[in-house]
């Protein structure tokens, strides 16, 4: 353990200041470096050990930190989150992985009825510094239950924080923040962009604060609000609209709970128009919350109804039809046009 820690530290000193990493690699580096820093951190889940995770996100951790800290669990999601709670109570900082967000349901009771509530139930005596990571969202053409986006369910659950990075840089910094947080954080990894692109990611620890949105592009005419893989779709739409002379501001929420309401209001007060993009179903989806916040805090700034571009209120399709389901640049542009032409 100590050996691994030293290796990690030495390596950090030897290596260049930044590395070009994919989002998956950035998550891996956050886990690797944080585990080197704090030996109470555990990684646990199905296939996270010798296999390095089905997306290879936990690759190398077992070798570096051994089976006492990198734990292949039985195939049971409630068991994973439930024992992570116990481990946190025993003084560890577990980072539990669910293999896909589509398999969150069996763990809902442990996550929402227990993890989210221990601090409150014990009036502060116990709190759970734990992270529950999981790949989420569609776009990789897998079987059923491998493409779900259930973030709204978690936002409606008091006591959780819910973080969704859209870039390698943010992924690392947000995960570091999540691991260091004293409360349970759900960390949703947009698997569609696990390897979509690389960017410079600093070696060594840094935090991206939970609860702060990022202005990806500044603009004047309309605000596109997105998170996770949809940020890239929003960016494509921004470029298409820019070519037509529309100045679009793109906001990447980065955290959906607590959401950065200030950033949203500030932007909409400037632009007067907004489109929210997410791929979860629309009915009671997180987009509705954004619309409600804007309605409450910036109604008079609105020049047009806030538009929602979302997945359909239907089961995420099997691969052959999935492209019909996912929000596209075209749909975002169309919604923007509706707002602009209102």
């Amino acid at each position: 353990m100590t050996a691994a820690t030293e290796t990690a530290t030495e390596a950090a000193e030897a290596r260049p200041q930044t590395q070009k990493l994919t989002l998956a690699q950035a998550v891996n580096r956050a886990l690797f470096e944080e585990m080197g820093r704090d030996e109470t951190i555990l990684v646990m889940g199905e296939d996270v050990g010798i296999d390095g995770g089905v997306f290879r996100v936990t690759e190398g951790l077992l070798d570096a930190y051994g089976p006492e800290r990198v734990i292949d669990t039985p195939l049971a999601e409630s068991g994973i989150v439930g024992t992570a709670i116990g481990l946190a109570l025993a003084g560890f900082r577990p980072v539990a992985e669910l293999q896909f967000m589509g398999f969150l349901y069996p763990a809902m009771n442990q996550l929402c009825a227990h993890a989210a509530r221990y601090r409150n139930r014990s009036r502060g005596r116990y709190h759970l510094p734990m992270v529950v990571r999981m790949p989420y969202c569609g776009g990789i053409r897998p079987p059923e239950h491998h493409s779900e986006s259930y973030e709204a369910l978690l936002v409606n659950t008091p006591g959780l924080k819910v973080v969704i990075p859209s870039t390698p840089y943010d992924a690392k910094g947000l995960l570091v923040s999540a691991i260091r947080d004293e409360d349970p954080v759900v960390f949703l990894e947009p698997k569609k962009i696990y390897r979509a692109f690389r960017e410079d990611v600093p070696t060594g620890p840094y935090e991206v604060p939970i609860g702060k949105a990022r202005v990806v592009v500044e603009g004047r005419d309309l605000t596109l609000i997105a998170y996770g893989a949809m940020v890239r779709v929003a960016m494509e739409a921004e470029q298409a609209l820019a070519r037509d002379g529309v100045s679009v501001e793109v906001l990447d929420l980065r955290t959906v709970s607590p959401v950065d309401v200030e950033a949203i209001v500030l932007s909409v007060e400037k632009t007067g128009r907004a489109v929210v993009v997410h791929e979860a179903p629309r009915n009671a989806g997180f987009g509705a919350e954004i619309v409600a916040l804007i309605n409450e805090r910036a109604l008079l700034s609105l020049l047009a109804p806030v538009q929602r571009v979302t997945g359909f209120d239907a089961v995420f399709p099997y691969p052959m039809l999935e492209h019909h389901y996912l929000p596209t640049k075209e749909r975002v542009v169309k919604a923007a046009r509706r707002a602009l032409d209102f």
Partner: protein
Amino acid sequence: MPRTVIQESRTERLEILDMEGRLDEALAPALSDDQLVTLYRLMVRMRKFDEKALNLQRQGRIGTYGSIKGQEACQAGLVPALTRHDWLVPSFREHGVLISSGIPMHLVYALWKGDERSNLFPEGIRCLPPSIPVGSQLLHAAGLGMGLAKKGDPGVAVGFGGDGATSEGDFHEALNFAGVFSARTLFFIQNNQWAISVPLKRQTASETIAQKAHAYGFPGIQVDGNDVLAVTSASQEALAHVRAGRGPYLIECLTYRMENHTTADDQSRYRTPEEVAYWASRDPIDRMRKFLSGRGLWGEELEKSWALEVSTEVDREVELLETMPAAPATDILDYMYGERPWFLEEQRRLLQEEAES
């Protein structure tokens, strides 16, 4: 090669004290006279605690209450076998365990009065807040037991559940994780044969609950849950096994819930007075008193003075309960997160404004 037996298991039942208070010497746990008397005292204290709770509920001084009457031997038999390193992971019917482990009675009353502050146990007591979703907290006991093993901590996590709890998926996952990871966990199941109105037969077709442990590769034993010495003996044996790092253990205490499920329940709808009477005749306290009297360790004088001592304590605790200052309204928001997010900041202002107006 053909059809071969590849696995065998057996489940044992332990009884030490019979209904007349006669002891099976060979099996009796090594306890001093004092320790024997303590077991009895613990049970009487639980009974008084319980009677007062039912009383407070009837007078509307606490809310819905779930009685432990009949299950005192299970709870008294376990506690003396524990150390301060051990973790309690209780369900909602472990008041006897709680008040015997250093948690003052008024906090347990406060739980049933509906006050989250009841879960703020005295420092140094390793006990989690009682958990309501049946069976779910057994996973916390499994995880704690995994963690204790990892840390080389001397403690054992004791997870509690009823017969009904064994039907939940989390019971299975908890036992399975505990088995795989050789967790320092004792699963302590009080099989009182009813889950509200559902009898044991409807809960599982298994002959015993103890044998369920075999599906997870560790031992299980059934004890007469109305026999405090059998519970003590089994607890000692099980805890020694777990402490030695030999993996988890399951104890099934076969007992009976003498009262309604909770004060909101009406047991006459689903079970006969005869059945209840039969179990009344097997009362754990009577049995132990007979035994102690036979040994000359207990008598009417002691009974009276202990009763007085306990009722004085109970009264003092009710006093403490009823003089707890009211919790501020903002308590409902102030323990959600380590740092308050903006929305709770706003909501807190609203709540405070209301309180002031």
